[in-house]
């Protein structure tokens, strides 16, 4: 089965980020989106640890232990960027000032509930970080994830079985098979990977899909 590669997924998300957007990219796959923003398009990257106007990784030898992103990787600051403390940083999120937040997910429900912080396994050590703030804070929450689990089950579900991160917070899913909007009228398919039909996508997904009007 044809699938979008991770860099293709990142490019697809990047393409949907308009100039001037304030954007938080979650750790993991979403971080890759930064590398695919069209050159010359000014997008403002926010990092939960108190950075706005975050730039790319520094050149080797220019790493700075005081300048890291949410994933604790060295980053840079663009001219025009700013630093602020954690309460101000999360006020930006919670106050609805970010246009877009891109997160990974274990599951997304048909209503836009998100599960991405905890497998719920009895022996797992929980860690939530900024996931719950990001999920409910931005004007739009995008999810990037593989469409299916390793065992082939749909990660888009009627009801999340993993512990929730946020309720009805996801606007759009970018999977490796499709781009799907979550709307009041259900899941609307915006785009499907080449070579896969709508009916095939529907078969692979746990929940009713609709053609985007």
């Amino acid at each position, binding site marked *: 089965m044809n699938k979008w590669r991770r860099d293709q997924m990142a490019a697809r998300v990047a393409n949907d980020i308009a100039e001037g957007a304030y954007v938080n990219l979650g750790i993991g796959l979403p971080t890759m989106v930064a590398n695919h923003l069209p*050159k*010359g398009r000014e997008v403002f990257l926010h*990092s*939960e*640890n*108190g*950075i706005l106007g975050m*730039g*790319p990784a*520094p*050149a080797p030898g*220019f*790493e*700075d*232990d*005081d*300048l*890291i992103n949410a994933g*604790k990787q060295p980053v*840079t*600051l*663009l*001219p025009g*960027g700013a*630093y*602020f*403390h*954690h*309460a101000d*940083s*999360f*006020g930006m*999120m*919670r106050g609805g000032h970010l246009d877009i937040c891109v997160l990974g997910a274990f599951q997304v429900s048909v209503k836009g509930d998100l599960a991405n912080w*905890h497998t719920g396994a009895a*022996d797992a*050590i*929980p*860690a*939530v*970080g*900024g*996931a*719950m*703030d990001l999920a*409910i*804070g931005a004007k739009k929450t995008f999810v990037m994830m593989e469409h299916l689990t390793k065992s082939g089950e749909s990660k888009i579900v009627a009801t999340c079985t993993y*512990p*929730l*991160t*946020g*309720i009805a917070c996801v606007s759009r899913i970018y999977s490796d098979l499709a781009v799907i909007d979550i709307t009041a009228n259900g899941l609307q398919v915006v785009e499907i990977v080449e070579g896969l039909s709508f009916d095939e996508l529907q078969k692979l997904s746990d929940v009713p899909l609709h053609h985007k009007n």
Partner: protein
Amino acid sequence: MINKISASVTEALADIQDGAIVMIGGFGGAGQPTELIDGLIAQGARELTVVNNNAGNGETGLAALLKAGQVRKIICSFPRQVDSQIFDGLYRAGKLELELVPQGNLAERIRAAGAGIGAFFSPTGYGTDLARGRETREIDGRMYVLEMPIHADVALIKAEAGDRWGNLVYRKAARNFGPIMATAARLTIASVHEVVELGALDPEAIVTPGIFVQRIVKVPRASRFSTVATVSKQAAA
């Protein structure tokens, strides 16, 4: 004349009591006051409740404090990391109590304590396991969870420079929890890499006014740092 500069880490930390609630700044390694944590290990206060974003990395800093058995409980948002083995072991052995708080609620609860707010309604975490059993309320059509302030006996934070009145500036993203923790503790102790003359810090750019800081202690700079303040637009494009 007021002089908040302590002669040494040992002197600065001398009166921290067993059972204290200790906030420790930092997000991962950035802003972590390593020398103050090492000092607290040497000082030996036990049965501590620690408030930090994480729960230690590797075997140094906060991880070493946990390993020393001085911590009873940790309030944090992100304990599990690739190198959080010290925490993982203690937690699995039931030797460390964990209060897991979404990061923004953690920050806001600290800020609320410093600002004299009795409690606040946050939308973060509503409907999740971390808000189970908690008071909720619908306000203007949105659901919120009631969050309580987190006060501390002591805050240990890392800043870049300070003066004898306790004014502080930070460096880049090492600022993170420092400014809000300073407001929430009865005793705030800051490590700085530079002690400057009164008036040398720009009054427009002081991040933590001295009212929130009781002691300052100078420590050498250990971490990698770059004097390149920003990348050029060209390099970034």
